């Protein structure tokens, strides 16, 4: 049962957040965008926290998928639907699956029972909190000279950039992936002589 607690908690949080969102819309009269942003944001952060805290690594993987999903949602809100799609395809479709496979490959039975955290979890927590605070302060204190309204990114604009000014990087990416794959195959393939 104990292993369900985080999920229950997660659902509770989810409910709470959606509730707040509903209240925001119905009573405070905020527009849908803000509400969705709020929901996605909280879900993303929540699931991210689960990713880094949960004991069972498989659930971590699942939580990560949730996290990436909600990030995709945020991309939509920010006005980059194409990117959101890419996010879904690349991360949820590729990377997460890859990671889950890896988890399967490297799991030993007794893995979950061991300590989840390093002995240095507390200093780590402090450090990352400090980083977060510093970042937040800096961001808040900075005038980014940003435009008042965000711009929706059309597919055409994106493809234009991608295939005109960024064609070279695009090719480089392919090379990079090629190198990665070649090496990855070499490393992952089991040697006849090597250890099993």
């Amino acid at each position, binding site marked *: 049962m104990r292993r369900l607690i985080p999920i229950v908690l997660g659902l509770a949080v989810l409910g709470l957040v959606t509730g707040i969102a509903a209240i925001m819309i119905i009573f405070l009269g905020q527009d849908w965008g803000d509400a969705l942003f709020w929901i996605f944001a909280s879900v993303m952060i929540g699931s991210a926290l689960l990713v*880094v805290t949960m004991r069972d690594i498989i659930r971590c993987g699942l939580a990560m998928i949730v996290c990436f999903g909600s990030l995709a949602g945020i991309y939509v809100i920010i006005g980059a639907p194409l990117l959101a799609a890419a996010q879904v395809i690349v991360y949820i479709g590729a990377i997460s699956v890859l990671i889950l496979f890896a988890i399967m490959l490297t799991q030993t039975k007794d893995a979950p029972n061991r300590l989840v955290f390093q002995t240095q979890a507390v200093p780590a927590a402090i450090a990352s*909190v400090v980083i977060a605070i510093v970042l937040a302060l800096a961001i808040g204190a900075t005038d*980014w000279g*940003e435009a008042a309204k965000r711009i929706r*990114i059309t597919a055409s604009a994106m493809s234009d950039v991608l295939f005109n000014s960024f064609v070279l990087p695009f090719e480089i*990416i392919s090379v*990079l992936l090629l190198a990665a794959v070649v090496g*990855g195959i070499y490393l992952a393939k089991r040697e006849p002589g090597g250890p*099993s």
Partner: protein
Amino acid sequence: MSDSLDAYLILAGLLFSIGSFGFLARRNAISMLMSIELMLNGVNLAIVAFGAFGASAAIAAQGSVIALMVMAVAAGEATVGLAIVIAIYRNKKTPLVDEYDSMKQ
């Protein structure tokens, strides 16, 4: 709220720090890898946000294209990383990174 750049940036910052916490605190190589992915996504969010609130449509497009490429790179990194994890798992029979300390000082 959804119209302020700061909100997105702070969100990105949070994601980044959570990822870094995971990286610092987790023992399992793969969960560290996942944490790195979280961090990268945080950065991505920042990039996209910067673009979206940029001066022109071109910049906005640039932003999301860059984010796209970052994803690709992340994929590449993940491939390499997982390959290495598998390789070392063969040698050490454990995914727990803090047990890989045969070389120190």
